[in-house]
């Protein structure tokens, strides 16, 4: 049975969270202060914590920071009624796994909790992808053509490079790339793929990615 910790000081919110999570098949326990949240989370009895940022005595960000400082990897989904962009960044940087702004759709909370529980169970993606001399480091988002220097990639350049390295030697059509890199399931008549392929070529060499006339692009296998 999956056991969840709810750290939230607003009684009425705890009520519906417990009810909804029970209906979804989880067991829950709730605490209303920061120190209690920290103490309970550190016991190891829980599979995930839903953490409100505005807790009394010790705010959620502090709880999270101390928890991570203790080496606890318990997945944490943050709830907050604040909406500054800085808060999002700070929460994720201090080790939150996900972030939901109040008021939220309950189904979305459920979906995020399930994703976090699954992700926590999966172990070991490779550190890097490799095709011939081209090496893409997944965590640092850098690319290298051995034995050359490492290049930083922007988010989108990285996503594009990842597609090529996961399918070396394979022709990837513009539509495939639009879909996997930009989530576009149709072509709105943009040449963004060409633009980004040219950015990538600038970093790994012009001839590494070849244009297959009329169909798409291909990473040379060696």
């Amino acid at each position, binding site marked *: 049975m999956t056991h969840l910790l709810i750290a939230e000081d607003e009684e009425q*919110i705890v009520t519906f969270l417990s009810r909804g999570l029970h209906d979804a098949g989880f067991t829950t326990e709730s605490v209303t202060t920061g120190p209690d949240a920290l103490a309970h989370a550190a016991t190891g009895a829980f599979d995930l914590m839903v953490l409100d940022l505005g807790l009394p005595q010790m705010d959620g960000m502090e709880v999270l920071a101390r928890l991570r400082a203790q080496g606890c990897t318990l997945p944490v989904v943050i709830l907050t009624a604040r909406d500054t962009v800085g808060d999002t960044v700070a929460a994720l940087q201090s080790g939150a796994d996900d972030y939901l702004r109040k*008021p939220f759709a309950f189904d979305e909370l459920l979906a995020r909790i399930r994703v976090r529980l699954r992700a926590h169970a999966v172990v070991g993606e490779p550190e890097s992808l490799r095709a011939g001399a081209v090496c893409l480091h997944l965590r640092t988002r850098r690319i290298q053509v051995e034995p050359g*220097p490492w290049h930083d990639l922007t988010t989108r350049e990285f996503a594009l490079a990842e597609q090529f390295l996961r399918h070396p030697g394979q022709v990837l059509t513009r539509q495939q790339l639009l879909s996997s890199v930009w*989530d576009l399931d149709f072509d*709105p*008549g943009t040449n*963004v793929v060409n633009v980004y392929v040219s950015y990538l070529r600038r970093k790994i060499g012009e001839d590494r990615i070849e244009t297959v006339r009329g169909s798409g692009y291909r990473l040379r296998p060696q």
Partner: protein
Amino acid sequence: MIPRPRTMQGRVTGWVLLLVTVTLSLNLLAVAVYLHERNQAAIETELEHEAVKFRRFLNSVDAAETDSVARVLHAYVQQAFPDTREAILGVVDGVTTYRTPGLGEGSLTLDSSLVSRAMRAQEPFTVSVDGDHGHALASVIPVRQSAPAGQQGALVIVESAQEQQQGITDTVQVLGLVGLAAISLTGMVSWLIAGRVAAPLRQVVRTAEAIDARALSARIPTDEGDLDEDVIAMATTFNRMLDRLEAAVESQRDFLDDAAHEMRTPLTIIRGHLETMKHRSGDDVATVRLLVGEVARMDRLVSDLLILAKAARPDFLNRHAVDLDDLVVRAVATASALGQREWRVIGTAQARVLADEQRLTQALMQLTANAVEHTRPGDTIAVGVECQRDWFELSVTDSGPGVPLADQERIFDRFQQGNRSGTRNGTGLGLAIVRSIAQAHGGSASVTSAPAGGARFTLRLPRHDVAEPSSDLLDAVPQ
């Protein structure tokens, strides 16, 4: 005309230089005039002395000899031994007949007007004679023969002032050079001193420049070294003003955060309870959906109001490098879920600019949602990007009914329930937010009629390029 110095340092130095230059020039002028006068007086004394010698000579010569002017003059010129600065000439009947060597190597000639004046004169007189030999004074002593048809004559004693004049010129030159050196030195020193005095001012300016909402804690140091009391007073006043500003900004930030929290908590409770309610009948399901929809709308209103409240704050934007092509394509990808339309991307920027990606995306989402609202399935909505040298433009063009000219300015105002801005699901704040996002970036938002008849909303923003991260520096292999 010298341009007016703009800085305090420049102005102080300018005035000091002016003052010193005027003082030294007056000084120099006074010295020159005084020396010249003294020189003139000395020469006149010398001439007087010569004249006395001549009169004594006249008295001493034989009466027989005095009957001839020419002879008298001849005799006197013969026995005279002038030094090199003097010349003694005898003029008889308008002709320079005798002369001593010395000044002018004997080539000194007298001006004809001087000669004729000497012939007419009854009394001795002194004039300036300037020429090849430089500045000189001449003393003319007329000599008359007692006999009725006798000769007219005059003795002319010329005393050169050249040597003394040269001395004055040299003195003035030396004084001038010393003065110039003094002026340069004064200029440099006063520049340095004025710079030191103005340094706290520049510190204030630097501090003020460094201040935005994220760094309101900067203060001007008041305990550094040997600051003057008035400078410390100024810095302290400025710091106190910063204290008040910081407190105001913080309290406003706290107020907005608290307001957000207080408004959203009841909304969260209502929505959560509605969504987790059990034993719902068919009617209830419809009611719950309606209520959840209303809560969501209320939430959007809260968010929109907060955004507008923050829009004027300096920390409204969070600027980073934004790739414009990526921004536009992802906006289309997200917006395409809003409705079945012909979605288009127009233009390519190939530029990375400094901007707030989230806010720009928010503006594009607002405009695309607006476009979806006013078009039907199958209509075209195009998101465009255009880059020029100093600005870039993001646009959303639709093939809907467009915005009447009369409404094109008004619809950007708050709570304007025009045909375009106030929509069924909107809060009436959407376009006001779009405008404030554009303005926070230093640009503007506008709407025009598209050539095909629909509406074309445009954000025109100043372009600040961000260089590609320098990858050559990253040689280390990440572990």
